């Protein structure tokens, strides 16, 4: 069902854990399946993400996208991190099954939520960053099955 990369990131997730006194913490939930993701960011004075950790309550795809997303943002500038889309995360994982696409949105949103928290704490305005939604709703509606 999952690619080798997904399985790798699922079974050996990178950056699991918490950061004490993180620069930004974002928690998002997914109304569709009830799963939850939390991202911790440690951002230095130059706006570089030095460290990142996550915790996820969710399926294999949710865990793997969390793990991959943390890898992708680590060492990046805030502005660059903002540009990382769920699609980029999925591509880096060699794709996800169609029913699992929404799980990757969770990762994107969690990063945005953590960045928002960082911006709020430091009274910053980050270009292009919107207030995070508390619930991630699926964007591409699946074909509604009729009975």
């Amino acid at each position, binding site marked *: 069902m*999952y690619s080798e990369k997904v*399985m790798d990131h*699922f*079974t050996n*997730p990178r950056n*699991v854990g*918490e950061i004490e006194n993180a620069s930004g913490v974002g*928690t998002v939930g997914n109304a*569709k*399946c*009830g*799963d*939850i*993701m*939390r991202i911790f960011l440690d951002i230095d004075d130059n706006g570089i993400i030095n460290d990142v950790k996550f*915790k*996820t*309550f*969710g*399926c*294999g795809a*949710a*865990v793997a996208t969390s793990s991959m997303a943390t890898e992708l943002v680590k060492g990046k500038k805030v502005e660059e991190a903002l540009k990382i889309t769920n699609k980029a995360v999925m591509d880096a994982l060699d794709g996800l099954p169609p*029913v699992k696409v929404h799980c990757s949105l969770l990762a994107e949103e969690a990063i945005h939520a953590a960045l928002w928290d960082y911006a709020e704490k430091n009274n910053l305005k980050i270009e292009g960053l919107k207030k995070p939604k508390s619930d991630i709703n699926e964007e591409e509606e699946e074909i509604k099955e009729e*009975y």
Partner: protein
Amino acid sequence: MDKKIYLDNAATTATRPEVVEAMLPYFTEKFGNPSSIYEFASQNKKAVTDAREIIAKSLGANAAEIYFTGGGSESDNWALKATAEAYKEKGNHIITSKIEHHAILHTCEYLEKNGFEVTYVGVDENGVLKLDELKAAIRPTTILISVMFANNEIGTIQPIKEIGEIAKQNNILFHTDAVQAYMQLDINVDDLNIDMLSASGHKINGPKGIGFLYIRKGVKIRSLIHGGAQERSRRAGTENVPAIVGYGKAVEIAMDTFKERTEKEIELRNYLIERVLAEVPYTRLNGHRTKRLPNNSNFSFQFIEGESLLIMLDMKNICGSSGSACTSGSLDPSHVLLAIGLPHEIAHGSLRLTLNEDITKEELDYVVTNVKEIVDKLRSMSPLYEDYVKGIN
């Protein structure tokens, strides 16, 4: 462990070698169409008759009351739709439970779109039907009560005898989806006042793609699949002779081994349940502690999610499921777990392990060890567990 430990026997079972053996001649040699007139085909007619008799006997029914179908879902659809059609003059109300299989629930939804009214009776925290609610739901227009014999997810056995009596007293037909219960529990259609009963071959080490519907003599029948005169003109389609023969064989074996097999399963099941509950904290057993299918266990592990658990168990060669096999592709938490009152996030962390009599205690020990390790690992990654621990400290 190198060997796969298959603990998903509620989803499907291995076809027994003896069953395959019994089927084989009917593919390549005795392949004739039982409806044909020549001698070569009449042996197949007899083979079908024999299987029908074995099955009838297993339920205390008559052979003429057994109709072969393409599986449990077809049987369920047939029972409900045919009754709706045949008795619509009498009324348009059907009663079922909130925890039925989708083959019943989605058929009810279909009937609701077509002028029928359906009451979905609730269950208590153990998944047992609320008989008071059932009684209160009865109307003069009620034509059918359909309640499953035992639940496929949490294993709870329903008070079928009581339901049968209520149905009879009120002159309402009673159908039961016994897909999980048949050959796991003792069933006599007369003692239990059952008018219709669905079953499926592949749940009892028989072949897939075959099932039956028991229809008590006197019940008005309409066809679901119209066409040729097979199954006394009630269910069209060239008889699936190899599968029917295999099904008969599977029932024969299941009858012979009944007592020993189910006793052994109950012992193994209890061992598994006791160890898991004792050794994994924040865990609950779903379904009734004793009124449950011999081979069913179903747990909820707080703070974790079922799919992750399943995949990690799979990597340890353990096959389990998290909700009905039919819905594990879906993203909704199981309607059964919600109906017994579990909150969404607890329903998420469910694991169903359904065993068979060939599982050993050693294998279950290996399972428990791995469940413990994996649950620990997933909890260490879980934001819900983090919140909980911070909350209680």
